[in-house]
């Protein structure tokens, strides 16, 4: 990419975000009885108090992890959509350790998070394995695995971790030592955000500065070339899925230990799917993942705050997110302008 083209990409992304915000405005204007208030809350709400800023940061944490996970898996051009299941199932793994084990403070969450990551990596690794071994579509099997993770996870909670005295299907309380400490007073922002920041750096270094990351990127751009060059593509594909799964599993564990007292999810929490959006916005580049995660978290929190105090349901954010994906990934969006630029460069 030349510098001007890179600038063009930035301009394009900015324009897409602007367009989607405009569409958000239009929807609000059409639907709401109090559009002024709704828009104000949507745009300013997330920043108007420390707690709301905290909400945005809290929301970013799971998105950072699933965004990184999906980025790594997509970097190898594997459409593994199992981050959702890995996140959920990783959290279940962490819940076991958080409930049943007694360990010293720092060690306890560390073990739980690593264990959750391990489980996540197995979980995303299997569709990868099926793909390289027999060519079963990783897209289809990872989708099925999400449901398997969901039901199997609920089974484990119900039969092994369930607090029978609780009035809902939830696990026992986590042992205090397992929880991640809150780092900003008056918010729920927890230590996980620092782990996430470190993971962003590690993932970026992994993808761009190590031979394993190199192999994954080569496979992602041209797998036949990778094979031809002697790269063990099967191994690298599985590695990318396992690492993606590990990050997603870690994310699930960290979300759980940072934000909850017990395992309480009755549904797949959906962060895996949002991770796909984050990764697309970030063009699978870990360095941009925090920006994308922040943007999405901001929008979601804005919508929540808005829907709480006005008549706007927050689900409209899903529509905006969908539009963003389509436009960002639309290679021909503004392609005429881009082509003009190319023509100009070629002529000069």
């Amino acid at each position, binding site marked *: 990419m030349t510098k001007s083209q890179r600038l063009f990409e930035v301009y394009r992304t900015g324009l897409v975000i602007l367009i989607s915000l405009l569409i958000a405005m239009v929807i609000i204007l059409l639907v709401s009885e109090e559009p002024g208030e709704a828009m104000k809350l949507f745009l300013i709400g997330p920043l108007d108090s420390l707690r709301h800023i905290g909400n945005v940061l809290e929301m970013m944490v799971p998105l950072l992890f699933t965004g990184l996970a999906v980025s790594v898996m997509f970097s190898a051009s594997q459409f593994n959509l199992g981050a959702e299941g890995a996140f959920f199932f990783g959290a279940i793994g962490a819940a076991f350790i958080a409930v049943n084990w007694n360990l010293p403070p720092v060690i306890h969450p560390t073990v739980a998070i690593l264990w959750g990551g391990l489980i996540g990596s197995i979980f995303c690794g299997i569709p990868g394995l099926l793909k390289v071994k027999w060519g079963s579509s990783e897209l289809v099997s990872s989708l099925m695995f999400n449901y398997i993770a969901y*039901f199997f996870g609920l089974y484990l909670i119900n039969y092994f971790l369930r607090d029978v005295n609780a009035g809902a299907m939830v696990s026992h309380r986590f042992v205090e030592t397992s929880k991640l400490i809150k780092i900003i007073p008056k918010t729920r922002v927890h230590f996980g955000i620092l782990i996430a920041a470190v993971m962003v750096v590690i993932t970026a270094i992994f993808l761009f500065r190590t031979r394993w990351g190199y192999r994954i990127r080569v496979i992602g751009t041209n797998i036949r070339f990778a094979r031809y060059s002697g790269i063990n593509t099967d191994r690298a594909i599985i590695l990318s899925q396992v690492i993606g799964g590990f990050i997603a599993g870690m994310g699930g564990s960290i979300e759980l230990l940072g934000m909850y007292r017990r395992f309480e999810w009755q549904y797949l929490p959906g962060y895996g*799917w949002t991770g796909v959006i984050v990764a697309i916005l970030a063009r699978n580049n870990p360095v941009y993942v925090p920006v994308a995660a922040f943007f999405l978290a901001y929008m979601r929190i804005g919508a929540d705050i808005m829907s709480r105090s006005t008549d706007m349901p927050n689900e409209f954010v899903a529509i905006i997110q969908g539009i963003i994906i389509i436009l960002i990934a*639309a290679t021909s969006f503004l392609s005429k302008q881009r082509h003009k630029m190319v023509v100009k460069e070629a002529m000069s």
Partner: protein
Amino acid sequence: MSAFFDIIFSSHFGYSVLRVSTPILFAALGALISDKAGVINIALEGIMLISALTGVIFSAITGSAFFGLFMAVLFGGLVGLSLGYFSLNLKTNVILAAVAINLIAIGGTVFILYLVAGDKGISSSLASKVLPKINIPLLQNIPGIGPIFSGHNVLTYLAFLSVLFIWFFLYKTPLGLRIRAVGENEHAADSVGISVVKTRYIALTISGILAGFGGAYMSMGYVSWFSRDMVAGRGFIALAAEAMGGATPIGCMLTSLLFGFFDALANSLQLLKIPYEFVSMLPYVATVVGLVIYTIRKTEKIRRIQEKAAEGGNA
């Protein structure tokens, strides 16, 4: 164990297998058409959801189930068309465009439901209609068989008839030939003046229409309301069913029935006190296992062919 077989061999069970297979079969046929045109349509899930809501809203407004069905199918086709627009015109990767459509469908249906019905969960405050059931005159009186095959929703019969239609369409009509040509070698099709884009648009629209039928069945046959996220992965399962069925109409039907079997089993087995989470997993596990077996067989077959030919050569 005997209780288990009592369940499986009852005609109620057979009936429910057909019932629960219906939406998957529609969507699997939708997946088939777009696959033949060389596009993976994972938006089936979202299309079904959108159509399910559309059917409910319009049948409630007009009081006519068939008008609701018409609108559901129309919307299904339109969403298929818009997937075409995103992937063929805007050149968004078709998987990502479909992820986006699914996302819009999940949030958007709740949003619209809220605007129309004032609820975010379920449409029960709308007086929506259901599509009629059909008793098949002679068949319904045959003991054992009658209760399995008679008395289904019209769309169930339509789904199984569609298998024939789609087979005929793909293999016996000019458009079917074009769709297959586009899917196999788009440059070849392009070079003889077949518009690849137009053909894919048509395929995606038909795919959307079929998913639209599946969605309408969900809210106007399978149950009589719309509730959030009610499609619950059936669109994804249909993709697996299509892959497992070897991308043929008959294969789609058989694998949809297989899935229907496990789904029906999951609903019945609870009465036998098997943990429901475990049983609920069955259809998905069955799908993955089926998919893997199918792909193993495919790779094995190629290997065997090569080995056999080699032996023949040495002799």
